[in-house]
């Protein structure tokens, strides 16, 4: 058993060292070198601290992430409470829909905002037509709105679990002892749910800080960290890799700090939904119940509306950048007339990456969950590092690392796959270790005891037992890899451009129709597998004992 765990741990650590730690080390190294001569310096950091532009960029990123976190909590907590404690009509559907924004590409949502409320947006033009001017959604407001609407599920999920984990008897005990309902909420409910709120909120913060696509679409002239890093590294005129490195290190420091706090809280408390008796639904007056229903459905519908808008706009004709109300598939024709290549690339790369991620992540998740040792602790830690590293920074590191030397990967497909695998690995590790936690360890011991070696036991017994969960993980990795933008935009070569790249360039240029079609394709590509697994997971649940 131990040998198997050691082999998995060592193998994975080597992979992570080569494709994650080494590239990151190079980024760190670049940040303390003078560009050109390579001499050691802290000058790059000093330059950032002195530059109003960079300080503004850091400030904007932190501000947007902070505001988004606050707003996501403000809508996520009431929504979670309603889902847990109010008999909202269509609760099951609501729950499914509420998790959708997490897997749909957020920059598509940002683009929808541009389509609707941008300079030439549908709503903007319409309102301007009847004499009502609306403020600009570019910059901070739009970015915060999109972050909030796409990231709030990170708050809803743990907080919902927290609310459900409150054993009814605890609340009843508090009330039985003479407390009012609000007293019970304050003294019993909140202390239990607080860590969940914090954990979810910090995730929103991290994701918002790292996000490249949304500010890339909506920032206009405002500087944002993730975008600046990309421009400093890949920009044609103003490239400055050393400054990009220094900004990267600062960004990683921020996200790593938030992640450590987040893990600290999650590590200490487990939110199991296995409370013996889930608290009863509140008995509300019809009026309040209606209000709760409207609010819950309202939040979810508003967050999904941008995606619906994109789907709709994609079948309308554009005249230049201006949208007309004529139906037509011209946008798709333009998208595909160029070449099928990007779409094919997206599908191929996502498939290869998803399979590879699960093949590497599942054994790691297994070892981390089953074999507590110093080595597996280290693996657990290193495996979570990609959470704190934005796609752009990882991609920059990969380019620096594998542009020359014994292993040249730049320009090929493999480097894209590696970036996807590394980025999605924490997810694969977490989801598979969660499944392993639910498997009775004595099953594997029984198999080993009967004479089957640990590695064969893992392959022939554990993996099939994990299958339904692994399929779910596979599909989710596939979806997020297919809509990945931040690393792809740094790493792609023209031969391996993906749909996201096409969309990005279309937005940058004037191909509004093209962008809408590409965005719609991305939505379909992500939504269809999601619907497929939903059915599959349901079916499997029925057949699992």
């Amino acid at each position: 058993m131990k040998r198997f765990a050691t082999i998995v741990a060592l193998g994975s650590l080597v992979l992570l060292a080569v494709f994650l730690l080494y590239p990151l080390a190079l980024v760190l190294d670049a940040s303390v070198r003078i560009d050109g001569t390579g001499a050691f310096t802290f000058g790059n950091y000093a330059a950032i601290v002195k530059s109003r532009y960079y300080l503004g960029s850091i400030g904007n990123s932190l501000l947007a992430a902070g505001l988004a976190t606050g707003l996501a909590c403000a809508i996520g907590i009431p929504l979670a409470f309603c889902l847990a404690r109010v008999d909202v009509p269509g609760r099951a559907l609501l729950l499914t829909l509420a998790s959708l924004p997490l897997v749909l590409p957020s920059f598509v949502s940002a683009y929808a905002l541009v389509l609707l409320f941008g300079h030439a947006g549908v709503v903007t033009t319409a309102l301007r037509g009847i004499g009502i001017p609306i403020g600009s959604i570019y910059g901070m407001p739009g970015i915060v709105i999109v972050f909030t609407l796409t990231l709030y599920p990170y708050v809803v999920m743990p907080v919902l679990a927290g609310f459900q984990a409150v054993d009814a008897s605890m609340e009843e005990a508090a009330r039985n002892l003479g407390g009012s309902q609000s007293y019970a909420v304050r003294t019993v409910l909140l202390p239990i749910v607080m860590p969940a709120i914090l954990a979810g909120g910090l995730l929103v913060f991290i994701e918002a800080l790292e996000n490249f696509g949304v500010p890339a679409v909506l920032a206009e002239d405002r500087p944002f960290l993730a975008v600046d890093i990309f421009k400093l590294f890949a920009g044609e005129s103003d490239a400055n890799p050393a400054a990009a490195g220094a900004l990267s290190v600062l960004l990683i420091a921020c996200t790593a700090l938030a992640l450590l706090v987040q893990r600290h809280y999650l590590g200490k408390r487990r939110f199991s939904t296995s409370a013996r008796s889930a608290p009863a639904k509140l008995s509300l007056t019809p009026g309040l119940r209606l209000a709760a229903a409207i609010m819950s459905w309202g939040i979810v519908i508003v967050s999904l509306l941008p995606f619906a808008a994109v789907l709709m706009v994609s079948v309308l004709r554009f005249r230049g950048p201006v949208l007309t109300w004529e139906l037509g598939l011209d946008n798709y024709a333009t998208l595909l007339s160029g070449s099928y290549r990007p779409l094919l690339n997206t599908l191929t790369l996502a498939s290869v990456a998803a399979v590879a991620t699960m093949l590497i992540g599942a054994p790691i998740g297994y070892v981390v969950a089953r074999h507590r040792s110093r080595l597996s602790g280290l693996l657990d830690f290193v495996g979570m590092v990609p959470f704190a590293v934005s796609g752009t920074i990882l991609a920059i590191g990969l380019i620096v690392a594998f542009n020359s030397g014994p292993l040249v990967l730049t320009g090929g497909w493999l480097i894209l796959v590696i970036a996807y695998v590394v980025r999605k690995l924490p997810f694969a590790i977490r989801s598979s270790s969660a499944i392993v936690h639910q498997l009775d360890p004595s099953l594997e011991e029984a198999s080993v005891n009967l004479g089957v070696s640990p590695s064969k036991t893992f392959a022939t017994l554990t993996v099939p037992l994990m299958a339904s969960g692994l399929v779910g993980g596979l599909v989710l990795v596939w979806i997020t890899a297919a809509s990945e933008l931040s690393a792809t935009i740094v790493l792609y070569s023209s031969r391996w451009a993906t749909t996201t790249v096409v969309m990005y360039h279309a937005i940058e240029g004037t191909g509004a129709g093209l962008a809408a079609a590409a965005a719609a394709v991305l939505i379909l590509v992500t939504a269809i597998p999601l619907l497929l697994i939903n059915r599959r997971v349901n079916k499997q649940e029925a057949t699992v004992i």
Partner: protein
Amino acid sequence: MTAIRIEQLTRTFGPVRAVDNISLDIAHGELFTLLGPSGCGKTTLLRMIAGFVEVESGSISFGDRRIDNLPAHRRDTGMVFQNYAIFPNHTVAENVAYGLKARKVSAADIKSRVDKALERVRLAGYGPRSPHQLSGGQLQRVAIARALVIEPAVLLFDEPLSNLDAQLRTEMRIEIRQLQQALGLTAIYVTHDQEEALAISDRIAVLRHGKVEQVDTPERIYRMPQTAFVAEFLGSTNMVPGVAKAFDGRNTQVAAAGTEFLVRGEVAAPGAPVLLSLRPEALRLSDGSDAALVHARLALREFLGPVQRLHATLPDGTRLRVSALGGAAFDALPGAPLVLAYDPAQIIAFPAP
């Protein structure tokens, strides 16, 4: 032939010495039980033999072969788990065939051996079923068949019956015992149920804090416990502290609980503090013809069907439990005087700690 020799085996978890320098010799064909309270290290010891817990120091040998450095899957033990550990994604027959396949037995042989094993555990015809269609007792039998069918060098049981209801438990333990004897396999059986241990074992090792307190046959463990802990753990004995007095050549007088007891043999020097173990069934209501007597009062009477349990109060207030046959007419009320008789040979004295 698989005799098991365990020498100076130790395993610690941080500050806890789960298995503390244990040495045991288990003969071929023996059903050897590890008995002890929760946390005494039974499971740890068993899992060290199976290869799931690493040995820190000491050795384990099957016959002449040292096995403690072999990986778990090469040790040739058949383990029956407390929670059955039946593979849910395999049928009953596939579960039983699992170890045979690992041993590359031919398909035809597998079929006949699986059928025979299922017959042995009275599950003939259940092969094609899926585990979730079986009851707890049936699952436990599948687990036993799965361990038996590979004819392992050693059978290992970790509280195999603790998830079953009381009646099934007594039936199954007889089945386990008979199967083990019929196949002539060496078995190590972990339980914290003393009755189960007494009922089926050839020999019992009583463990406490990772150490062996006593290894003996069930009769000797029960009748001649070597430590107060063993006496107390096996059967709800009455422990009464006292002080040894004169030895009259046959019995020692012990002053305890405001009265005096006679204990066979010279148990301690006069004046030494001792701890007496008085088994409830070693005490009975005197019919007037006995030599050794104590006077007490009835505090409470519990009627338990086949027996009744009397709670007697000794002169200084110490309570004693006394088993009396349930059929014996006895209608004294609480507070009534009792005269209890005993055989001095059945009282055991331990040096007081």
